């Protein structure tokens, strides 16, 4: 990855490195900042703490008013019950498969389309771009029945392909990549073309290597969205084993009573890998967005 050789610059100050991380503070301590952030952080995190506590409670405690905070005896058995009530691992793999399919698809298609919209000239470019963005502007349920009919017609019900297919095409992703490519200086491209490269080679050899960080940002956003996607997979799958986790967890909602404790435990387990992914990738995500032409 060319990351190591690239540095951010502002056009007026070419060639300068990013803000260095200074260990010593300038104006006294940042204590007050920590206080503010910590308080805000508590507000952000509090519902999750409650979710964890709920997952370790009994249903009677959950369904009582006033609500019970600390369950007293921690019901670790709820976590074990998750695996007996759901084909958790199978659904986990379904989630992974559809997420990988959608993310990989979007990375390829959105970068290509984004590049074309940003850097190429062709008739109706503006019109096509407007059409692409317009799909974000109708209620998503509009697509439910038509997409179902297409997927059904292709015989893809209950398959990873069927669930993933519509999500491979993304207006948001195209928009994101387009913004990035717009920010790349013309000179690079001109130089490449002067050397005789055709547009695909320019894309492949010059543009794409630079886009690594942007693609990282698109990755995390798509992964998040796909992981929690609920209604579409629920409609397209008719077997628990072909559902992704989000849909599987939703099935805990019974008609009149819901096993909230196990449901919260399952949600916590499902959220963990993504959180982990974010913790690991967050540096790249910030860097990615920094370089993604959004500035």
């Amino acid at each position, binding site marked *: 990855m060319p990351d190591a050789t690239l540095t951010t610059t502002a056009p007026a100050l070419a060639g300068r490195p990013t*803000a260095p991380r200074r260990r010593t*503070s300038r104006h006294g301590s940042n204590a007050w900042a920590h206080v503010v952030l910590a308080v805000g952080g508590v507000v952000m995190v509090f519902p999750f703490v409650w979710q964890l506590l709920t997952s370790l409670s009994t249903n009677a405690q959950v369904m009582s008013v006033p609500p019970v905070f600390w369950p007293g005896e921690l019901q670790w058995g709820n976590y074990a019950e998750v695996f007996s009530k759901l084909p958790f691992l199978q659904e986990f793999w379904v989630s992974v498969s559809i997420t990988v399919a959608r993310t990989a698809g979007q990375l390829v298609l959105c970068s290509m389309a984004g590049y074309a919209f940003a850097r190429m000239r062709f*008739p109706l470019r503006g019109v096509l771009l407007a059409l692409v963005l317009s799909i974000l502007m109708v209620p998503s349920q509009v697509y439910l029945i038509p997409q179902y009919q297409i997927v059904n017609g292709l015989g893809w019900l209950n398959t990873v392909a069927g669930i993933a297919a519509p999500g491979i095409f993304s207006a948001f992703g195209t928009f994101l990549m387009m913004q*990035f490519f717009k920010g790349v*200086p013309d000179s690079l491209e001109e130089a490449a073309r002067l050397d005789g490269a055709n547009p695909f080679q320019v894309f492949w050899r010059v543009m794409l290597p630079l886009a690594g960080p942007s693609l990282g940002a698109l990755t995390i956003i798509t992964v998040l969205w796909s992981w929690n996607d609920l209604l579409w997979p629920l409609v397209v799958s008719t077997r628990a084993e072909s559902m992704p986790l989000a849909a599987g967890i939703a099935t805990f909602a019974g008609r009149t009573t819901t096993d909230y404790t196990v449901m919260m435990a399952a949600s916590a387990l499902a*959220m963990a890998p993504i959180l982990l992914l974010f913790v690991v990738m967050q540096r790249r995500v910030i860097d990615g967005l920094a370089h993604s032409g959004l500035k």
Partner: protein
Amino acid sequence: MTSVDRSPRAGVVAPARGSAPRTATGGAAPRGPRHGYDGWWPVLFVLPTMFGVVLFYLWPIVQTGYFSLTEWGAFGGQTWVGLENYQRLARDPDLGTAVVNTLVYTAIVLLGIPIAMFVASLLHRPGMRFTAFYRVLYFMPYVAMPTAVAMVWRLIFNGDFGILNQALGVVGIDGPSWTSTPGFALVAVSVVGLWTSLGFAIIILSAGLRTIPPELYEAASLDGASAWRQFRSVTVPLLTPSVFFVTVITVINGFQLFDLLYALMGQANPAMQQTQSLVYLFYNEAFLRNDKGFAAAIAMVILLIVGAVTLLQFRMQRRWVTYA
């Protein structure tokens, strides 16, 4: 804006990596791309996406447009009725309510942007530690599963036993049944919406902050500018492109409000009629009352409204967004 080292090395990358093909299209003369259309290349790049977009998204929108001119019951059987659905919609008081509610929701969620700017700048302070930890904290709501989130917030907002009202009770305020009273319900839903999307805004604005060269701050402080002045004159202007992006996305998402409403309030909620959003109106007509032609008209109206608002935003960006 650039993200590339300006050293000549980068410009040499292409030929240095192997072939410098003098292909038929490349040719020697610098005649090609800059002076007209790019030939067939755009087709290669754009076609896969356009194919999928047309098949899975645009075609359904066209169909919806057609259905909006019909009367379509639950299963099959459309009869052409022309503009009748739209006329009915124009007379429907629920449409106005839904528009207002959606706007209010979006406005409150947009308040998250200044908050996110503040938080991001706190995280960006020189010598600030544990930034990674804080970032994970603030991003968690965005990662969470909506069902779990809704359940916990319902408990927080509960009129009789929720901790919000208990806290208010300490200072002598008798809190309402937040999610079941018109007006308050919208505020409650908006707060949760804001809480959820804050993380996204913080991440994007953090990235934007990192691209502002510190030399500008140094120069400003050398000129005697206070921290606040620096924030106003250096940070804010250079952050505007990120703010623009977040704003556009937040508005578009705001208009899609539905899942949160449904999860926090439930269909049979007495306040639902006054709190419904545009998409809820659509869902109600399409799937609950089985009036799919009418629902299609609603969808078309939503498209119009959001399209207009987005267009407006793009036009107006010239006024306040500074691309460095």
